[in-house]
């Protein structure tokens, strides 16, 4: 027996899904929100250095579970490997209520206006599907603002001349600076650059009924025991649930979007917590499962009107998988900089996001989150041994003097960097898993190398006595900043969703998450995902109101 019909069923309670749920529920529409992971309260914060969303050597604290959820990665040599969620290359984000926002580092960047107009600004790049977004910064600006105020952002952008216009400042001031921050700030100023305090989805002062950050060492990759980090699970989701119109169903995994003869969705099939197949009928379906799983779900949803999968008439679903190429540089300072103050990352420059001669874009550069001892282990110059007395001496003498500067290099989208269904490997429910293949564009590596050099300049100006740059390989990108697999565009032949996030050849299915990003900016993506969700939520609300 199927469940009673609702206005909307939303798949995935991550950064995007709960925002759409809230936008619909407060307007009186009935919503079912399906999340494959579990719900964690702040006291479930599980501060474990070896098992979290950043260092998953012993698994992920916030999903997916260690077994039963494999993916397949095809490497540059064409070799396919089955990977578990804790292995490098799996491209995990999270599987829990709040998704990545429960445990993220919480940088809250707006993209730069030019990030929406990459092709017009720089021209085509050979071997890349680089394109303009069909919407512009100005279209998103009100929704960026809404995300900043409703979810909650602290920081101070007043010193950053490289940003789009904004109507309102951020609702909270930044946290006080660390030693590292002061050193880097002075150095950037001396270089003539424009340093400022990173915007963060974190309470620096009490806000929205939750307390302020106490600056612990376990932030990025961990949930916050004070609930001071602002995610969807402690903001929009409680608002949605309080309306009485929204139901959250956890440990429920969507596996197909069935359609009628005309090709419109009738609801969602999912496997519930007890392992039983259920069907939730709905007027509208919203897919917010993040770039890898959203593409997988659309490809799994085959029917006569959508033979190759929902939205995949022209073979664009799963294409253009991208993330960010993080390179940067490490520096050993003459003096100790470690002051044991989380979250660590606090100062940034946007001087090199655009305007780099010969380069199509660039990256925001910032200092890194505070490093736990286990995370410092790999951060050594090439001549330091990996083990033995040399290793130990380096850790002992360098740990408190290490500073890293890095940035999310804007990537050149590659058509063949893609998600498909694996022909053999299945998950614990017997459903084909995501097969990831492709590579990074050569120009992406050129840009990221140039950004590493800028990071090095910054560290040297701050007094580093030794520096060593990071480099990147050509392997597939994606990871926690995964995006691009259901491109937004005006033309059904070269994109998957329209500018309102609706799948082109279907009246009532939306994709709302990083999948729709045409390009992924030179910034961490979550605030853009949230802004898009507010904007799509508003559109869906209007649509639902119209066709009663």
């Amino acid at each position, binding site marked *: 027996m199927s469940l009673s019909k609702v206005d909307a069923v939303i798949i995935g309670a991550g950064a995007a899904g709960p925002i759409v749920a809230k936008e619909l529920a407060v307007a009186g529409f009935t919503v079912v929100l399906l999340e494959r992971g579990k719900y964690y309260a*702040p*006291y*479930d*914060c*599980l*501060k*474990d*250095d*070896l098992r979290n969303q950043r260092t998953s*050597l*012993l*698994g992920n604290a916030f999903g997916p579970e260690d077994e039963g959820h494999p993916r397949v990665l095809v490497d540059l040599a064409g070799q396919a490997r089955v990977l578990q969620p804790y292995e490098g290359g799996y491209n995990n984000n999270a599987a829990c209520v709040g998704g990545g926002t429960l445990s993220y580092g919480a940088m809250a960047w707006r993209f730069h206006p030019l990030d929406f107009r990459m092709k017009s600004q720089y021209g085509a790049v050979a071997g890349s599907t680089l394109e303009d977004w069909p919407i512009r910064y100005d279209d998103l600006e009100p929704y960026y603002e809404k995300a900043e105020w409703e979810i909650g952002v602290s920081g101070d952008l007043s010193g950053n001349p490289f940003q789009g216009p904004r109507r309102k400042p951020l609702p909270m001031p930044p946290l006080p600076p660390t030693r590292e921050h002061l050193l880097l700030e002075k150095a950037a100023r001396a270089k003539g650059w424009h340093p400022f305090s990173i915007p963060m989805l974190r309470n620096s002062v009490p806000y929205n009924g939750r307390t302020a950050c106490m600056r*612990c*060492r*376990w932030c990025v990759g961990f949930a916050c*025991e*004070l609930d001071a980090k602002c995610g969807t699970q402690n903001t929009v989701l409680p608002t949605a649930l309080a309306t009485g119109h929204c139901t959250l169903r956890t440990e429920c995994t969507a596996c197909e979007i069935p359609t009628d003869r005309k090709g419109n969705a009738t609801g969602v099939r999912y496997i519930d917590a007890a392992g039983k197949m259920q069907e939730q009928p709905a007027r509208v379906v919203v897919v917010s499962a993040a770039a890898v799983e959203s593409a997988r779900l659309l490809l799994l949803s085959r029917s006569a009107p959508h033979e190759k999968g929902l939205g995949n008439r022209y073979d664009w679903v799963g294409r253009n998988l991208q993330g960010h190429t993080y390179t940067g540089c490490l520096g050993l300072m003459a003096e100790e900089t*470690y002051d*044991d103050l989380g979250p660590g990352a606090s100062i940034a420059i946007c001087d090199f996001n655009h305007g780099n001669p010969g380069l199509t874009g660039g990256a925001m550069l910032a200092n890194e989150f505070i490093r*736990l*001892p*286990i995370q*410092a*282990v790999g951060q050594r110059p090439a001549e330091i041994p*990996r*083990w*033995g*007395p040399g*290793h*130990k001496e380096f*850790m*002992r003498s360098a*740990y*408190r003097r290490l500073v890293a500067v890095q940035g999310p290099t804007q990537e050149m989208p590659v058509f063949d960097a893609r998600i498909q269904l694996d022909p053999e490997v299945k998950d614990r429910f017997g459903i084909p898993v995501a097969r990831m293949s492709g590579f990074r564009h050569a120009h992406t590596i050129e840009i990221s190398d140039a950004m590493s050099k800028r990071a090095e300049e910054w560290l040297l100006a701050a007094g580093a006595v030794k520096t060593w740059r990071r480099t990147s390989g050509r392997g597939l990108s994606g990871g926690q900043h995964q995006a691009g697999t259901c491109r937004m565009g005006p033309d059904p032949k070269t994109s998957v969703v329209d500018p309102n996030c609706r799948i082109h050849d279907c009246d009532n299915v939306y994709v709302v998450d990083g999948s729709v990003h045409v390009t992924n900016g030179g910034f961490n993506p979550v605030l853009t995902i949230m802004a898009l969700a507010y904007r799509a939520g508003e559109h869906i609300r209007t649509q639902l109101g119209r066709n009663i």
Partner: protein
Amino acid sequence: MKRRNFLTIAALTAASSCSRTSPAPGLRVLSGKEARTLEAWVERLIPTDQDAGAREAGVVHFIDRLLAGWLKRKRQPWKSALEGIDRGAFLAYAKPFYELEPKRQIALLEQMEAGKASREAFPDDGGKAAFELVLSYTMMGFYGNPRHGGNRDYVSWQMLGVPAVPVRGRRHRDEAALVENEKPNSSSGKETL
């Protein structure tokens, strides 16, 4: 290969397979001999000097606990690694690894790291995978938090000057884990590598 060496290895292998009937006292999975080999190995990776090393941090205990849990279904590479390094030591010096002088232990580990240890000891890759496996878990057991049985008394954090602050929401879990840690070995002997 010299006949004498071959015989010793055969004898060793036979002997070790019967001695592996039960884990050593205080351990859940590793036999006494395996624990000694592993301890000598991790001691070379993070040696004791003015500060505690992997031995004092309880890295063997950490790995043993994982072999009973997280690594339960991934024990084979550990078995091969511990057998392999001993075979390598025997082939070169006719002694088990833990009886070698530190200099020789280091030389063997360097060969493994470069994938150049004896193929008789490590047929697939000259010891590279075994080396990387033990290295990565040694780092985790030394620098990670004590919940999993390593980094005893926060020795590595003391060395780095990182305070072991009690964090709300973490403390009760750490304490629960430490109690679990101290449980005596109740294994029936089936839990060997």
